[in-house]
């Protein structure tokens, strides 16, 4: 029983990062499908959202929920600005060029952060959970599983956002336009869809989702630098490859699988402490083997390209 509680505790501990990972995965997938590029700046854009939230809560003393919304809005706007000013003008840049532009954007934002935020000069920034870190309840007696209210809040926000976005994707006109743009931008444009707006809004939504992810994530860790979301972003990309970028739901399942793998390896590490240094390497290796087995992803379809 004790052992099972220990395992469950690891599972509960992973949930906030898993929520952040799922949201980041959706953001990455959305941009991959509408703009056909891997947005490496996703992590740093969401980190800026988190910076806005924490800066105004910590330095200026506004309530966290208000600054969190402000952070999400800022990330939304940054996403739109990037699309309108960079990607719309770089329409004829090839796939590699687009990738490199997003890499360049990382450098730009990382360089900008210390000039904009006072927080970047702090020696240490405390973790910023919505509800105080020690609050929570126990299941199963004194040695049971401790669940923080933050975890439940994170899970709730993520589920609501995911359900809402998938209903919108399937049922609304906006969702139809996004799916059409994702499958073929030129034809979607011919059919009277304003693909420019769709792409811009997709970038905005991706930014906003990233900001939500970052704000959930920094409840558990501290906002050390602009690179704080790198691990989440890597997991999001891996989830995309594992689930296959062909569908919207595939990467989400991929993200869940990756984080559950983390839990399993974490449980194994309790018994074999030597492995704990190699934890992420093992997860990565398993994911790579899965990709080797299914190159198009677990839920992917073989994409046929015309020459």
């Amino acid at each position, binding site marked *: 029983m004790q052992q099972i509680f220990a395992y469950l505790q690891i599972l509960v501990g992973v949930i906030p990062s898993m929520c952040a990972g799922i949201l980041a995965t959706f953001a990455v997938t959305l941009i991959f499908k509408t703009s056909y*590029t*891997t947005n*490496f700046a996703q992590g740093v854009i969401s980190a800026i959202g988190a910076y806005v939230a924490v800066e105004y809560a910590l330095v200026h003393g506004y309530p966290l929920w208000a600054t969190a919304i402000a952070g999400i809005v800022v990330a939304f706007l940054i996403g739109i600005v990037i699309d309108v000013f*960079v990607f719309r*003008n*770089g329409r004829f*840049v*090839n*796939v*590699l*060029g687009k*990738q*490199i*532009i997003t*890499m*360049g*954007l*990382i*450098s*730009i*934002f*990382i*360089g*900008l*952060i*210390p*000039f904009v935020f006072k927080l970047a000069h702090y020696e240490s920034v405390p973790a910023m959970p919505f509800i105080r870190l020690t609050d929570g309840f126990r299941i199963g007696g004194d040695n049971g599983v401790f669940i923080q209210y933050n975890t439940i809040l994170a899970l709730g926000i993520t589920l609501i956002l995911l359900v809402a976005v998938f209903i919108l994707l399937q049922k609304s006109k906006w969702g139809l336009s996004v799916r059409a743009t994702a499958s073929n931008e030129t034809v979607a444009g011919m059919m009277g869809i304003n693909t420019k707006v769709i792409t811009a809004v997709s970038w905005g939504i991706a930014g906003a989702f990233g900001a939500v992810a970052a704000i959930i994530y920094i409840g558990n860790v501290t906002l050390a630098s602009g*690179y704080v979301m*790198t*691990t989440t972003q*890597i997991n999001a*990309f*891996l989830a*995309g*490859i594992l689930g296959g970028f062909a569908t919207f739901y595939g990467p989400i399942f991929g993200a869940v699988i990756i984080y559950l793998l983390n839990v399993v390896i974490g449980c194994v590490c309790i018994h074999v402490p030597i492995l704990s*240094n*190699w934890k*992420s*390497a093992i997860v*990565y290796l398993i994911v*790579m083997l899965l*990709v*080797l087995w299914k*190159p*198009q992803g677990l839920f992917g379809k073989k994409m046929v390209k015309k*020459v």
Partner: protein
Amino acid sequence: MMIKKNKLTSPLFREDADRKSVERKLRFLEKIRKHPTFSFAIFALVLVLMQVLSKAGLVSSSFVTAIGTTVIFCIVALGFCLLLGYSALASLGTAGFIGIGAYSAYYCLVEWDLSIGIAFIVAILAAFVIGIIVGYISLRIEGIYLAIVTLGVAQIIKEVLSAICDTIKIKGSQLTLFGVETMKLKTDHVFYILIAILFVLMVITQNLMNSPTGRAMLAMKNSTSAAQAFGISLLRYRLLAFIISIIYASVAGLLYMMYVRYVSNSSSTLFTLSTSLNILGAVIIGGTKSIWGTIGGTFIIYGIDKMFLQDIDFFRENPTLITLFCGILVVVVVMFYPGGLAQLVMELKYKLTKLSKKIREARYGKDLG
């Protein structure tokens, strides 16, 4: 028969033969001068001169150290240039592979007490094995996945390395040539080794770019479908370019350990994403297809910062300014000026020759100009 004899003995002919031999010699010299290796050699000599001048006290030693460090990053960038400019792949794992090289150096030289040659072999082999695994899996799917997968690999390499041993350090006494105690390598000796290796790698890269392999990569970059139609195996050449690039990075990591001799994972940013991004920026800014462009780009990103800006308070207090500058340059170059620095220099050269021709024409008239 008679005519021939006459010709041989005639003074006119002898003069002619002399002129011809001089001409041949001149042509030979011209050929050497035009040969790409010649300019590489001149570049290497200039760098070596810096060290000599520093010994004479004319150049500060920190300036030479800055050049040495930049040369190490030049080696990384050369490999990356081959990957990005010739096979159109981007990798974000450069920093991780530099780390592999650095840790191989540390373990071989300090922990296992082996010689430098073996350290080189270990560094290259380690990079090779990881490169084959990572490259084979990611490149089998699609080219753009390489950046994603290498980003993850670099992060994991960094995590594992810093968990195993956070600070790596090589003492001067542990760095000997051929394992002979008396042949200790001082920092300035390592500087010469750096320059020599840079020179050799520049020549190798130049030859590789002009070889059938380089042509195949270039074809693949311009159109994957057309390249496949000509019988070029995408996976094979992409894998080759990737492995070459990471071997360069690994060797550079090893050289870094030999030259700087100290890396602390928790305080240094050497093994983080920012290094990979800076290398990418250097290659993009310099012009992805040119060796000189790559070297120039690296000197812009790393050299100027380390050589001059570190002396100015404003830049020391705002270390991210150079990152910001690099990022803006990358975006601008990719969007508006894909040739980068190399193209800029070419265009300036062309304009200058045109201008000088015009001036000459204006001065001496059309025919004489």
